[in-house]
């Protein structure tokens, strides 16, 4: 069975039973899937224009070219800087971003028509969204280039944590004139444009929290007293989760932003659970959430209003701040039915905020249950590929961050699409990649870049300098060999299982 040393062998390995496999990079798959996404998005654009009974205009070419350019650059960047990354993640994002763009453009057309009939002009959101996508692409590239290895992020964990907290708190501290839009104090109004710092804080805080938990993991795994067979955590270890709860409550109180509070709390809980592998944290967290939710319901009228709108939006239809918007969203979804009205053939603009919070209602109306399900499944595939990368990556920080980021995607669509479809009370958060709005897009492209980085690391072949089985002449630096009780006595060249005993 002896083979001459292959050119893949290094470090003096003469024989190899399991030659280091060059994992397929799958960039070709990614390219084909991206092309497929581009095809879907282009067809959607054409359908919108056809159904809105306009002749195909040049704008479609510009949007199409911009879209192609953006994802060509993204694909090339991934080829260059994350060649082993999961091939499904980027196409999923491209599809969602593209469909979002189509819907935003479609609602622009409807609004423009409306504006013409009352003698006004309306400025579309689609061109801005394209610009934001370009800006997001630059951030995406920046993250891929700068973060060569996600583990380096742990070095700046506390900085990220501080900046994240500051970004989160900033709108609450600023006067309303600089931070409030539609009742939610989550903005930072700058001349020319506004950003939602909370979107970026989400990612910064997740990096911090992942690093923090990995560093202090042992602490949280220490059992406290046992009561009724359940190991309770020690009281002093409750610190982080209490801090998280207080922060979320702060968001709720000072920024009147239920959705972000819910999102943060869910993510913290899941990351804590993943880090400690102890269900008790989930139980503690959920109990705190329930108590907090009940207190918030008692204290805040806007929370009560949201709940009333959730229970029966048709009953509170005419109330100020009542169920009008949700009811209109439901009317749209119901009108769409199983197969939808067809892109450009419905009236999604009837719903207020149809291109932001309620974009899922707009898509559900025009693409029907089938289309909305497909979009949900694209999200699920995206998050599951992220989760797979988290499972495959070898470092705990990567696992925790990857798991957290993947869960954040699903948590966010659960909060917003669940709210729109009346599964849970409506709490405004953005729909990742779909809804119009720069901050969300920028932040979520950073998220994708991080996921790609983690999946790239997960699938990148291990450094060949590290031999598979430590040989007797292995350097002493390979300390972990000490841990092995019985050093393996396998002879090179022996088949596995042949002489284990």
């Amino acid at each position, binding site marked *: 069975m002896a083979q001459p040393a292959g050119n893949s062998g290094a470090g003096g390995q003469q024989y190899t039973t399991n030659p280091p496999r060059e994992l397929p990079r799958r960039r070709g798959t990614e390219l084909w899937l991206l092309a497929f996404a581009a095809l879907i998005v282009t067809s959607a654009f054409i359908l919108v224009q056809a159904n809105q009974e306009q002749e195909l205009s040049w704008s479609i070419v510009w949007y199409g070219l911009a879209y192609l350019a953006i994802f060509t650059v993204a694909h090339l960047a991934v080829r260059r800087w994350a060649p082993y990354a999961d091939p499904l993640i980027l196409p999923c994002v491209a599809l969602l971003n593209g469909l979002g763009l189509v819907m935003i453009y479609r609602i622009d057309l409807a609004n423009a028509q409306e504006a013409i009939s009352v003698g006004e002009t309306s400025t579309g959101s689609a061109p801005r969204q394209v610009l934001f996508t370009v800006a997001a692409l630059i951030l995406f590239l920046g993250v891929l280039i700068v973060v060569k290895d996600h583990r380096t992020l742990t070095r700046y964990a506390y900085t990220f944590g501080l900046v994240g907290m500051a970004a989160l708190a900033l709108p609450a501290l600023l006067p309303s004139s600089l931070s409030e839009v539609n009742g939610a104090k989550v903005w930072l109004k700058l001349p020319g444009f506004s950003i939602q710092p909370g979107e970026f804080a989400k990612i910064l805080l997740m990096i911090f929290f992942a690093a923090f938990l990995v560093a202090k993991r042992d602490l949280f795994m220490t059992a406290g007293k046992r009561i009724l067979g359940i190991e309770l955590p020690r009281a002093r270890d409750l610190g982080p989760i209490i801090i998280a709860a207080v922060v979320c409550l702060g968001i709720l109180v000072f920024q009147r932003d239920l959705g972000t509070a819910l999102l943060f709390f869910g993510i913290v809980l899941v990351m804590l659970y993943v880090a400690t592998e102890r269900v008790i944290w989930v139980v503690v967290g959920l109990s705190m959430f329930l108590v907090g939710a009940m207190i918030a319901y008692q204290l805040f009228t806007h929370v009560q209003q949201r709940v009333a709108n959730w229970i029966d939006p048709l009953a509170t239809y005419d109330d100020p701040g009542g169920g009008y918007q949700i009811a209109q969203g*439901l*009317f749209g979804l119901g*009108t769409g*039915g*199983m197969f939808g009205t067809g892109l450009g053939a419905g009236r999604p603009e009837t719903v207020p905020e149809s291109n932001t919070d309620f974009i899922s209602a707009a898509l559900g109306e025009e693409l029907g249950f089938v289309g909305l399900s497909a979009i949900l499944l694209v999200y699920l595939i995206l998050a599951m590929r992220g*989760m797979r990368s988290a499972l495959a990556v070898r470092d705990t920080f990567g696992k925790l961050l990857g798991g957290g980021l993947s869960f954040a995607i699903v948590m966010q669509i659960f909060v917003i699409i*669940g709210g729109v*479809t009346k599964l849970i009370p409506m709490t405004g958060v953005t729909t990742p990649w779909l809804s119009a709005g720069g901050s969300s897009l920028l932040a979520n492209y950073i998220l994708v870049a991080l996921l790609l980085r983690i999946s790239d690391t997960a699938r990148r072949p291990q450094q060949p300098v590290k031999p598979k089985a430590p040989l007797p002449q292995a350097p002493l630096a390979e300390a972990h060999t000490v841990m092995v009780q019985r050093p393996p006595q396998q002879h090179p060249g022996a088949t596995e299982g042949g002489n284990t005993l």
Partner: protein
Amino acid sequence: MNTPLRKVGITMLVMVSLLLANATYIQVVRADDYRTDGRNSRVLLDEYSRERGKITAEEAGQVLAGVKPTDDQLRFLRTYSDGPMYAPVTGYYSVLYGAGGLERAQDEFLNGSDPRLLVRRLSDMITGRDPRGGNVRLTVRPSVQEAAYNAMTQNGYTGSVVALDPKTGDILAMVSTPSYDPGRLASHDAEEQQEAWKQFSDDPGNPMLNRAIRENYPPGSTFKIVTTAAALENGMSGDSQVTSDSNITLPGTSTTLENYGGATCQGSTLAEALKYSCNTAFAKIAGDLGKEKLEATAANFGIGMDDLEIPMGVVPSGLGELESEAALYQSGIGQRDVRLTPLQDALLAATVANDGVAMKPQLVKALLAPDLSTIEEFTPEELTGEAAMSAENAQTLTDMMIQSESNTSGGGKDESLKIASKTGTAEHGTDPKATPPHAWYTAFAPHDDPKIAVAVIVESGGNRGLAATGGTVAAEIARSTISAALGGG
């Protein structure tokens, strides 16, 4: 760390599954509830932006309600030619207030959602044409409608005119005054719509009430046609002797019922009683006939039908309880609780004209596809399936009504029209003697080959006040209507 990650993965799967299950509930199970909710403007807007079918008159397809393309969101504006004149016929079609009248009764066909149009709609989709609604062709004759409407409005009368073809039941004219302009309700300017709606509904003249079919009145002496028919059917003849007393005491009461002006009847036969419209004679006849016989004949005229649709619903006409002989006496002359719609009143004359058989009134002649090919044509049918009187008795009654016409004054008399008629002057209100009476006139012509039956009501005496009678106020309107109908033919 992989075990909890896998569990989180499963949690994600569960969360998305929840969203999918909920979307199924909303978009599939509950979809119809949400789609058809009155507050969901989508379906309505879709319908309004489709090219609605036309409503055309019988002759030469004159368009009463059409559409004009616009460049706003709704794409097509509903237009009405001579809106107020035809409003009782066409009804209205408003984005804010929905549809009324025929526009509502034939809405499915006009808006194109009627299943009979389905084949065409599918072919429209394949050929890429916009789906369009079907057209409705009416029985209304513009010349008759115009004559009746102008006669009413020139005098400023409040009331109604209904003209029927006695042989087919075709509604040749249906006028209700004062009227309104449905074109203003169809405006795409919401403010204009609201203003018009408010103006029409606040107007004490109640212009949006279609008096011809949606209001019933005491018919007064025109009801004597029914009483006479019942008498003839039950053995009396034109020569039967009847009372000619100037007044008669209602049985069981001390109240007296008197002839018009308190005069003694100028004749003592049934024929003369109808000619001179003697109240005492008919009160006695009704009392002698009894409740069942009067009701039976009335029912064969269509009185009491509560499901008549032309295709708009018609409010039922009725005799009231007829609980006592006194009530029977008063009802015999069309007072007390007898209430007829103007349409029903026209049916009285039409039934006599058609050898005693009432034909079902109908407003729609045919339903046409968008390309004007006929989808459904309506054939005349009998109203009750049972004659109100024999052809012989109908001829007797016709002769009596010819006599009545000869005794009736009022403008527009023209022997060549060969009218057979009956007038009515109906008391109403809480103080009948001090309230100007409703002036009625119901007639058909020519009496030897009836082509038109008309009923006219002018509410509260028109411009004559307390002195108004059916002859002096209503007859002229009907005669000009008949003249328009026969002049053309």
